[in-house]
């Protein structure tokens, strides 16, 4: 009936609270301390003066532009894709499902090599493109392609699971009222899943911004053309340490502000009926 050893309720309660507090504090510290350490390794004056370095500015410029373009393409193509993928059964659906997850498992450097082997000048597709004078490797477009490849699973998986979990009765009702699938997608499905889609977009943007292995393999490292911020950090870490540190801090600041902005946008959610 009663357990052989039973602590007083109060004691148990206190222990639980202490245990939970330890867990939360240790996880927070483990994640936050390295980032904080970045800020303390440099001085504000050094940071401000490094900001005017042309390497820093071109890396920042290039990273933001390519990441936004990659995010845009993933959202514009990925949302209808996820919708069609979820609402229909077609032969090979399972294969496509697995392929969506593939870039998550693939090491980024392998992804970069794969892109190079396919789209490079002597690649399977690249050699044909080369005949028409189209080069992909070592261009800014290569940066975008690499970012899309590694970052799209974040958005696609999120969109997929959101659409699958959405109560189909809303869409079915709209269908009976005569709405086309596209209209359903834009006026019902997306607004209802908006906050989840936004969080998927945030993750995609963060991943694209931080992409390194595939970029250096497929796009190369050329300041102003393909040297994104992570590449510049890597070069800077071994050459001009302050530049590397500055760009790292910039990346942290940008990531934080994007996440805060997205959370603010996502908080304005469409309430269910």
């Amino acid at each position, binding site marked *: 009936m009663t357990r052989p050893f039973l602590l007083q309720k109060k004691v148990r309660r206190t222990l639980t609270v202490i245990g939970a507090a330890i867990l939360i504090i240790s996880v927070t510290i483990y994640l936050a301390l390295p980032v904080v350490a970045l800020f303390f390794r440099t001085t504000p004056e050094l940071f401000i003066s490094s900001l005017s370095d042309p390497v820093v500015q071109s890396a920042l410029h290039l990273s933001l532009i390519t990441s936004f373009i990659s995010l845009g393409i993933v959202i514009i193509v990925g949302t209808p894709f996820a919708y069609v993928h979820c609402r229909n059964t077609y032969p090979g659906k*399972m*294969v496509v*499902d*697995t392929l969506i*997850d*593939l870039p998550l*498992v*693939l*090491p*980024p*450097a*392998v992804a*970069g*090599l794969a892109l*190079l082997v396919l789209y*490079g*000048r*002597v690649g399977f597709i690249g050699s044909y493109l080369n005949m028409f004078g189209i080069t992909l*490797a*070592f261009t800014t477009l290569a940066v975008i392609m690499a970012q899309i490849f590694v970052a799209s699973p974040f958005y696609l998986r999120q969109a997929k699971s959101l659409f699958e979990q959405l109560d189909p009765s809303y869409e079915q009702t709209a269908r009976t009222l005569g709405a086309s699938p596209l209209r359903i997608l834009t006026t019902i499905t997306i607004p209802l899943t908006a906050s989840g889609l936004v969080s998927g977009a945030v993750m995609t943007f963060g991943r694209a911004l931080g992409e*390194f*292995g595939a970029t*250096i*393999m497929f796009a*190369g*490292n*050329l*300041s102003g053309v*393909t040297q994104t911020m*992570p590449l510049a950090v*890597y*070069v800077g*870490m*071994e*050459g001009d*340490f302050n530049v590397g540190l500055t760009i790292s801090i910039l990346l942290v600041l940008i990531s934080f502000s994007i996440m805060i902005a997205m959370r603010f946008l996502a908080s304005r959610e469409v309430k269910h009926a």
Partner: protein
Amino acid sequence: MHKRWNDVSSVFIRIICLLIFAVLVAGCTTSPPTNIPPATTVAVQPTTMTLVSTPVPTTAVPVKTTAASVTATPITSYTPSEKTLIVYTAASLTGASKELGTRFSATYPGHTVVFNLEGTQALKTQVENGAYADVFISASNSYTNTLKSEGYFINSTVKPLTTNYVIVILPASNPGNIQSLSDLAKPGKKIAMAAYNVPIGTASYTALANLAKSTYGQDWNKSVFSNVVSYEMSEPGVATKVSLGEVDAGLVYESTYASAPAMTLTSISIPKTDNYLQTYTMGVMKQTEDSGVAQEFEDFMLSSVGQQILRNYGFRSVS
């Protein structure tokens, strides 16, 4: 019921496919067990993959360390023992490192060598941030001097090891149709070089500047640099881009060209009068817990056996 069976089997099949894919990917990214070289790269920085133009492809995608060929078991941490030396080595010695490790272990039974092969600038950063090394082989005199002044070396052990010239390599098929050094400046050519802080990078820039001053002019120099599509972080990175055929030309050390597999590369040599002779130095680190074995390794590298191995891989002797 029919629907549920579909769900279960589809999940099952999906997991199997993912596992197969993961195994395939893992199989493609680890070197075959029979060919584990003592040369490994430690990924302290974000994952980079270096493919070298040697018969054994090594990839450093996850952090994988293996002891020298005497025992082919992977060691998972760099706890220095009496029998294992950790040698931080400039990446251009990747091809020679396997044989050097094997011969050293054969000459000094019981001792093994683990090489950490990266650009000298990367190794220097690691050491300055607390990484442990017994011996440091640097491809750049200036980095050696910096480390000496910072007190990382046992200064009396710092000695020149070998030398190397710069050479221009082309893919064997010569897709850019580059026949001479002046062709490097032709518009539309793609050139790969090392970044400014990599020793081969500074060597390349100096050689090009010398060529411009003596023969081809400053416009040629400017055009060559405008043809550069990528500044790599290590010398094997440049060699990889060239051997893959993705660029028309690259500047590397003569040793890389000499030890490349047959039929993969051709070259255009740079006249000695304009060329930059890189001197590699080697020294025992102050922090070593194995100064005796470290000194033995240095003696081995400087002995006729070690020097002959280096020469076989295209390095020149210290004049």
